[in-house]
């Protein structure tokens, strides 16, 4: 039994995204475009974490991410860790960096914002204040809490 579990969780080549807030695992899959890919993905939700209480983990086989893609993850999981696996070994650990701008992926929460009425690509500046991240809309100049932007 133990051996079989290992087969499921061990990754030969790929990426392990750890310490994602449990409630944001589905959002993370969405933001990273992992919903429609063919590679093997292992997902853990509500795993026990000393630091976070409940955490989530995503293991993706044969997939490596650009820094720009990981920037998106930083918005909803600023404390996530990224482990790059090659030949069953962790060859690199990356820290996430919050991007200065978020273009084309988030939604402005202001119902009167022009981006919600015209076919316009959204564009935000990231505003970090302590642990809180919000997005300031380039167009209507209103702030959207990151928890409501995706």
């Amino acid at each position: 039994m133990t051996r079989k579990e290992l087969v499921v969780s061990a990754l030969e080549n790929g990426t392990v995204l750890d310490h994602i807030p449990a409630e944001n695992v589905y959002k993370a899959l969405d933001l990273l475009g992992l919903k429609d890919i063919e590679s093997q993905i292992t997902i853990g939700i509500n795993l026990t974490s000393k630091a976070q209480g409940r955490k989530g983990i995503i293991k993706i086989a044969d997939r490596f991410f650009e820094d720009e893609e990981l920037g998106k993850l930083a918005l909803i999981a600023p404390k996530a860790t990224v482990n790059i696996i090659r030949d069953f070994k962790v060859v690199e650990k990356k820290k996430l960096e919050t991007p200065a701008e978020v273009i084309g992926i988030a939604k402005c929460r202001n119902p009167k914002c022009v981006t919600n009425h015209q076919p316009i690509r959204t564009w935000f500046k990231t505003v970090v204040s302590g642990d809180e991240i919000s997005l300031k809309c380039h167009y209507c100049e209103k702030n959207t809490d990151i928890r409501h932007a995706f």
Partner: protein
Amino acid sequence: MAKSLISIRDFTKEEILHVLETAREFEQNREQKFLEGKVIASLFFEPSTRTRLSFETAINRLGAKVIGFSDASNTSQSKGETLKDTIKMVNNYVDMIVMRHPLEGSSRYASEVATVPVVNAGDGANQHPSQTLLDLYSILQTQGRLEGLTINMVGDLKYGRTTHSLLQAMSHFNPRFIFTAPEELKMPKEYKDFLDAKGIEYIETTSLDEYLNDCDILYMTRVQQERFTDLMEYERVKDVYTLNASMLGSVKDNMKILHPLPRVTEIDQDVDETPYAYYFKQAENGLYVRMAIISYLLGYR
């Protein structure tokens, strides 16, 4: 992309002062037709008679011609044309676009689509920078300076975009603020954070009487029904402050009352005859300031 005026923050302190200086020149001589041969579009996707007439008069007094509309209901926007296509089309015809639109951020977007300068004449509850510049001009004209003044803002400080923009613009000039508003309409936290970060002092009160005698400028605003999504909230606060002449007995001699107009009940008519009333002259100043904005953006001043 040409230099546009979308948000008051698009102008540096130097540009603000330059426009105010230029406005003074137009106040002394408003017959200066150096834009003869130019065509300027005045696109009002929602009606605003006061702002539109002021801009169109400014354009005419500078000698340029105006094209445009005062209401989007009989334009191709009502047929479903995108804002982008409307702006692209108009952009081919004119030297500048003045635009008002009910959606917030629409003018910024238009300035990115257009190659000619765009002047935001109001985008929903967001920005209305020509109003801010005429407020600054009126403060400068009545006080002889912009530095170190105490501004008491009264009324709807939550939804009132004029107060938000004026606060941002005045932050260049070492001011002190008094925010007089009911609990429901207090100055939003993001603007207070902005002042805190700049080390600018402010006091909040719900009483109009409390700091009336301490200010150089009393900036009154109307509680605008159209900005409320909750009508009950509007009913509770709509008549919360009424200024009348009997309240002005001990105010500072230099104190002036500004109001972006139209007023409803917040300033009694008996205030009009006092030496403190400046709101009608303030509206007239809008003409000179808009002439200055247009001349500056087109590179003539």
